[in-house]
Structure formats: C-alpha cells, structure tokens
C-alpha cells in the first residue's frame, strides 16, 4: 500500500483503485500522476445522492466526460407484493414508494382502482376536496425537502433547517388527519380512511397564515446570493426537446418553458374547478427549476385556501356498501383502529353487519377484469399507475410509472461536459427520491 494521507491505493485488474475519504484530492492527483482520466464512483452511500443512488463518473481534470447512473439499491418489490394482498391493502404498500409524496402514490392507486370499478363518478365531493387538500399539502412538504436538501448541497446550510422546520409542521397536520406522519395509507379505494378533524383544519389555516411569508424569506435568503447564482444559473441545462425525448415531466419540463401540468391539461379530482397558475421559466437550468418549485408552493397555498372554503360536511366514502370499508377509523387508547361505535354495532346489534364486515375485510371486494392507466401530477412529474385486474379480490398487476425513475435518465445529458461540482446541482434539481425510483 502506497500513498500518504487518506488516499489509499491498490492494484486491480482494471488498474489502480484509490479509496478517497475527503480532503485529500491533491494526494490522489499526485499519485495518479500521468493518468489523465479518473473514474470516480460516487455513492451509493453519499450525502448528496438523495438516498442510495450511485453515479460512476469519468473525469478529465474536473470535467465530467461520461456519467453513468446505477439504481436499484432500494428495490423492495412493492409491485410484486401488491399481487398478494387485496385491493384495499394496496394503499398501505404504494404509500411507501415515493416516501416524500405518499399522498400522490395513494391517490393515483385509488383512482386506478376506482376506474376499474367504474365508480369514479361516485366519489363524494368532500372526499375529492380532501384529496386535493392533502396532495397540495404534500406537494409543499415535498418541495420543502427539495429546497432544504438542495440548499444544503450547494452550501446554504441554514436553508436545510428552515425547510425541514416547515415540513415538520405539515407532517404534524398529516399526523392529525391520518394518524401517521409518513406512509399514511389515508386515501383508500372509494374515498378516505377517515374524516379530517377540526384541529387539523385550524392548523392548515395557520399554515396559510405564515407560509407565504416563509416562502418569501427563503427567496430572500437564496435568490440574491452570489454563490447561489453561480451554482445554479446556466447549470445542467435541458431544453424542452431534450425533456420530452428523455420523458422528463414535472418542474424540470416546466422550467424549460412548457406549461405541461396534468392538473391543468388532463384534470382529475376536480382540479379544473380551482383557480391556480402553472409557474414556468425559460431558463431550463437549476435556477429555473428553483424558481418553478418556489412558485408552485405559492400556487399550492392558493389551492389549499380554495379547498378549505369549499369543504362542506358530507360522506367521505362511496355509498356502495360492497366497496366502502365497513368501519370509520378512530384513534383509541392503543392507536388507530375501528371506532368504538362500529365495534359495538357489529358485536352487539347486527349479525348481518358482522358478517358483512368479516367478508369485506378478509376477502375484500372483486374488481371487474380489465386494465387502466391513471396519471396524476406528482411533485416530480407524471405519476402513472397501470393497474390490471383479472376480476379477483387482488390486483393482477400494478405498475408505477415513477417520475424519479424516468427523470434520472437525464443525469448523463445534464452532467456530461460540465464540472464535477455541477453534477451535484444537476442531480439535485431533478429531485429524485430513490424509494420511488426503485420501488
């Protein structure tokens, strides 16, 4: 073993391999000497890869010649597992895919099941409004994590603290509503697991009060910063043609100038009745994506405000008792479970209700055979759910078109020919979540 400091060197069949542990780049360059090309393996355990993403970068000096993306480290077989659970249980699984955008995974899945059942029209207005409310809150919390982590990676450490502070507030709202901070399983085929309580509504109103100011303060913190400009402007440029060829959707596509937002272009859940704008930019770089995401948070607040106004009392589940989950969930002494009224009803009053509860919970409902594709606008782009039923009580096949997975294909296009440091900025601007990418 030669080399001084931390850069250790060993011979392999592929040439010299160095293990570098930070702060010793000079040592490495001195050791590598005449060899101009260096292949750097970044990740899968690296703080700026948003999970377990591995990048293999071929460098000439500080310029990236070739970038390869390696994914799959977080593959958990969620799609396969879905085939062994009933349709209602599916919510619990899909929510764990893109863990920063759980509400979107659940809504996409439930809309697919509802279209298979042919009950799309029966979803109650209150259920749809609450879905919109939850999705927009989730969009803000997801963008906040993006802003926090990207800020940290580009040197704005305080942004990390502010972003997670506000996100925590939104997670508290989710906890009040669904019982869980993350992985909610709140949106269910046919409606919702339970109704929104008054305390949560109050908290959301409070959020509407202070959040616009907070978003302005993020902008004050970053937008005038010289270093922020240098790290984002003109970095990782990808134009509309490049985006469409590579299948990139969401804020990255909108930052290139195309106002393609499924909430506007192919509306669902009643989005066509809300007033909001689709923020775009023509910069097509990291700066543009930062602007688009900031403005999207403001638009989400507008939608939340309108959703709160139209939140009328009413049912949150379809009326069809052969589909609707037979119990209202409630939080008891030992956690979330069937409400006491429901337990009293099935155990003490109605034998038929007990049988019905038992059949629906153990067997589940049957979904007519066929296949559907439902796409919604998730924080990262088009989230598509391809669901196939064979007429049974379990999904025959569910495939997620995950925006993180598709968008990561843009890394070579963004990184090659640029500087090593810009790989971090470009990769972060895609906002990949590996749980969603690998599923």
């Amino acid at each position, binding site marked *: 073993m030669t080399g001084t400091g931390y850069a250790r060197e060993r011979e392999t069949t592929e040439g010299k391999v160095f293990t570098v542990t930070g702060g010793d780049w000079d040592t490495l360059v001195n050791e590598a000497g005449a060899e101009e090309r260096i292949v750097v393996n970044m990740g899968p355990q690296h703080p700026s890869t948003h999970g377990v993403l591995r990048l293999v970068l071929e460098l000439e000096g500080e310029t990236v010649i070739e970038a390869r993306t390696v*994914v*799959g480290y977080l*593959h958990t*077989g969620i*799609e*396969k*597992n879905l*085939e*062994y*659970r009933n349709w209602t249980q599916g919510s619990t699984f899909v929510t764990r895919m893109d863990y920063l955008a759980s509400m979107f995974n659940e809504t996409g899945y439930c809309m697919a099941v509802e*279209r*298979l059942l*042919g009950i799309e029209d029966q979803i109650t207005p209150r259920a749809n409004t609450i879905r919109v409310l939850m999705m927009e809150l989730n969009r803000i919390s997801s963008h906040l994590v993006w802003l926090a982590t990207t800020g940290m990676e580009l040197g704005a450490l305080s942004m990390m603290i502010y972003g997670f502070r506000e996100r925590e507030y939104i997670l508290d709202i989710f906890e009040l509503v669904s019982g869980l901070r993350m992985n909610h399983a709140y949106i269910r085929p046919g409606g919702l697991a339970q109704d929104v309580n008054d305390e949560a509504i109050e908290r959301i109103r409070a959020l509407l009060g202070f959040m616009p100011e907070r978003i302005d303060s993020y902008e004050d913190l970053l937008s005038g910063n010289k270093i922020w400009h240098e790290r984002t402007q003109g970095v990782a440029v990808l134009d509309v043609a490049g985006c*469409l*060829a*590579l*299948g*990139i*959707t969401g804020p990255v596509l909108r930052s290139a100038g*195309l106002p*393609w937002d499924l909430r506007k*272009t*192919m509306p669902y859940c009643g989005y066509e009745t809300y007033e909001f704008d689709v923020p775009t930019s023509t910069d097509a770089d990291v700066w543009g994506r930062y602007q688009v995401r900031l403005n999207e948070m403001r638009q989400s607040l507008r939608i939340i405000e309108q959703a709160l106004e139209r939140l009328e009392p009413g049912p949150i589940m379809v009326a069809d008792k052969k589909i609707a989950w037979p119990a209202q969930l409630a939080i008891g002494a030992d956690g979330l479970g069937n409400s006491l009224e429901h337990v009293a009803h099935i155990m003490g009053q109605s034998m038929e209700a007990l049988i019905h509860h038992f*059949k629906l919970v*153990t*067997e*589940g409902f*049957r979904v007519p*055979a*066929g*296949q*559907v*594709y439902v*796409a919604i606008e998730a924080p990262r782009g*088009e989230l*598509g759910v*391809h669901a*196939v039923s*064979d*007429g*049974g*009580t*379990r999904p*025959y*096949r569910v*495939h997620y*078109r995950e925006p993180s*997975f*598709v968008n*990561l*294909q843009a890394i070579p296009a963004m990184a090659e020919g640029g500087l090593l440091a810009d790989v971090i900025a470009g990769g972060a601007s895609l906002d990949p979540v590996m749980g969603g990418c*690998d*599923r």
Partner: protein
Amino acid sequence: MTAPQMPGPDASVPAPGAVTEQGDAQIRVTQARNPSDVPPAGVPVAAAPVGAQTGAPADFPPSTEAGRGLFGVHGSGDTSGFGGLVRRRTALADAPRPYGGYFDEVVDALTEAFPGAGGAIERVVMDRGELTLHIEPEQIAAVCQTLRDDPALRFELCSSVSGVDYLGHDDKRLHITYHLTSLTFRRRIRLECAVTAENPRLPSVSQVYPTADWQERETYDMFGVVFEGHPGLTRILMPDDWEGYPQRKDYPLGGVPVEYKGAEIPPPDQRRSYQ
C-alpha cells in the same frame, strides 16, 4: 414450512390443484403445458379448482339470475380460500366502431399514415374510456415512429413501458404495454404486444423514444423480455447476477412464516386467497 427463495427454471414442485401425471390425472386437468411452466408450491396459478369436474354438488353452486351465488360465488363454489387461487380472464373482444371521443381519429390517422397498419394492428380494444391497440410485436418500433412523427398523431411522450404476465390465459403470455401521450392534442393511447415466454423478443422503441431505455431495461429485468436493438439491455433494479424474472407469475414471492401470539402465520403467498 420453508419458502422457496429462488425459482429454478425446472422447479419440480407442482402447484396445489395442479396435476401430477402419475396421480389422479383423469380427475384433475392441468393447465401447465410443459414442466417448466409448473411453478413451485404456493404460487397462485391457473389451475382447475379442487373438486371440480367430479360431479360433486360443489360443481353446481346455487346461482342467482346473474349466474352467481352469494358473495360472488361461481365455479366450484369454494369460498374457503383453500382451493387455490383460480385466475380467470374474460376473452378480449374487438371493440365496434365508433370507439368514441378522439379514438376514431387516432385509429384512422394511424391507418392512413402507416401503410401496413391493417396487418400491424391485431385488435382494437376500447375499455373504460381507454383505447388499447394490440400491435404485432415485429412492427412495434415502426408503429411508434409513425405515432410520434405523423402531424395528425403527434404522440411525443412515451409515458410508460411495462409488462404483464398472463400465465395460463394466453399462449403468448408476456404482454408489453406502452402508454403514449400526445402533448399537442392531449391524448393518451395504449399499445400492447404479446410474445411467448419461449421466444420473448421484440424490437426496442428506444431509438424512437429515448425515455424507453430504462423502462425497457426494467421490463427485461422483471419479465425477461428481450428488446432487440436496445443499446444496453442489462438488469436495472435487481442485481446483475440475479437468476429468474421476478414479476413473472411463476416466480414465487418468497417469505418466511411469522409467529404471532403462538400461532404461525404463513408467508403471504401461502395464505388463503379468494377467487
């Protein structure tokens, strides 16, 4: 109870309800066409329900006018969940014209722009407001090229490529589905190609839609479908040296039994399952 961890291509354990040649073959009828199709135990496959065709009363469940008994019972009437999961799939029917909405326009424009479209489109299915064109696998790349470039079609975005395994329902059991989106016209269609598990090959569309690169790799990884002309068809989600194709229906889920309050809960793929 040990769960199969890795499926071999020649797994020799028959599925419950599927047949053993030396056994009561005259009573039960197998759906498996060759030994390699016989999956390991516990995997729900298309198999004749236990007790079917024996003349037992279970063959003739009390039916309503809809042809079903209580709680959707049909067939053998086994509602215990222990008879093995019987997957049924209704045959696809060609949709009659008009398809409705923009779908007639799309099919007409495709027929006009693509000379061999009549032969390439095997079937047109209209279901739940979505149009599926079943395309002859050899023609898929050419059809996609036309769908992308023709001014009357303009499907610029390939949203999704994935697969479905119709084991026991279709001789060409592996179906590859493509979801195309037209941003210009705000339209969506689905293309579907069927190939056999013995020769799962079809042309890659990655030259037409570069975004299909990773999605075809995923489909190869999960279903073993070979996309000819793909620039680098390797596994993407599973490790490089993995054996088998996890999303195929004859690949077991795996898992271990769990003890809960003194009772043993079998792994998910061996629990009772309802028709």
